[in-house]
């Protein structure tokens, strides 16, 4: 048998592995009727496990979604910085902001694929949970029928059938849970790293924060722009006060015009 196992069809081998498991579990049971109750109890536990799995994956998916929103905001903020910098003629700052944006965008893309993968796992586990749920219901009904109708000896065959069918499903669901757990664990490690990054301020230092050199520079420029315009305003005030003394400059100074143009407008009654 060992010699042929290697060349035996994959599909057959997988089914034999599942069946061997079921038989081994059956062999351990002394009283077939006990098997029914014990197995049912395990099915209910497995159902709980797969439902919890669905909830866990959903939680991970939501966490990733939240991080995606945060990173998107960060990316938008960097773009605004770049525009502001460019408007003020600071291409160097604009470039730096766009470089930051590109880094954030890379992480965002990574999260997007994680999100899709978690969504897929969630769908798979939901399907597994529905399949198992339906089969557990059938098993429960059949279990009662077998107990009520058949003697222990007669019941054996029927129990074996029901048990094998549900065992196969349990094995399948068990594998699905394991796969989902593996994927979720990988993502949680990465999500944790991004959370740390966000918390450390490397990404989310935010407006006026001292960690953000680009923003600090823009703020400084913003402040000096304010000072410049204040100076300009003051100069303007001084100039307008001196207008009457410099008559020769005259005609262009609309603000100094004392004629009251609005009163001269014709008003239709």
């Amino acid at each position, binding site marked *: 048998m060992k010699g042929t196992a*290697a*060349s*035996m*069809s*994959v*599909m*057959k*081998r*997988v*089914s034999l*592995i*599942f*069946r*061997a*498991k*079921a038989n081994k*579990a059956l062999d351990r049971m002394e009283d077939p009727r006990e098997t029914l109750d014990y*197995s049912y109890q*395990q*099915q209910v*536990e*497995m159902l709980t496990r797969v439902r919890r799995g669905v909830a866990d994956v959903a939680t991970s998916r939501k966490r990733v979604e939240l991080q995606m929103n945060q990173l998107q905001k960060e990316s938008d903020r960097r773009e605004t910085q770049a525009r502001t910098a460019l408007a003020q003629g600071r291409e160097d700052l604009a470039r730096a902001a766009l470089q930051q944006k590109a880094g954030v965008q890379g992480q965002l893309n990574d999260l997007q694929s994680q999100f899709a993968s978690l969504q897929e796992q969630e769908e*798979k586990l939901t*399907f*597994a949970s*529905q*399949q198992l749920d*339906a*089969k557990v*219901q*059938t*098993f429960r009904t*059949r279990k009662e029928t077998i107990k009520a109708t058949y003697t222990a000896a007669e019941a054996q065959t029927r129990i074996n*059938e*029901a048990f*094998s*069918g*549900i*065992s*196969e499903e*349990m*094995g*399948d669901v*068990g*594998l*699905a*849970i*394991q*796969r989902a757990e593996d994927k979720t664990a990988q993502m949680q490690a990465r999500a944790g790293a991004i959370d740390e990054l966000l918390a450390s301020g490397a990404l989310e230092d935010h407006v006026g924060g001292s960690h953000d050199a680009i923003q600090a520079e823009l703020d400084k420029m913003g402040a000096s722009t304010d000072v410049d315009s204040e100076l300009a305003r003051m100069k303007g005030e001084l100039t307008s006060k001196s207008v009457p003394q410099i008559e020769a400059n005259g005609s262009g100074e609309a603000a100094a015009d004392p004629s009251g143009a609005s009163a001269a407008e014709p008003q239709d009654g």
Partner: protein
Amino acid sequence: MIVRILGAGQYKLDEAQAARLTPLDAELTATVDRGDEQAFKQALDAAVTLVREAGSAVAADSLATSDVILPSPDASLTEVRKLLAEDGIALG
């Protein structure tokens, strides 16, 4: 014949459909034996597609056991080898 696709439920195939699956299973087996990941993916995909398209889905509340079982449609060669080698399937 009842075929289970791991993670995707059970399907019932009539004799003619089952006959079409046999060479695909043989191809799948060959790719696993020689460890050809890309060919394995193709063979698995072909088998899964045939079962899904030609077969009819078995009702979810059925307790029928499957005659053969296909790996999960997105399984890697490594996963399948592990599955074939191990006895770590949690049957509860």
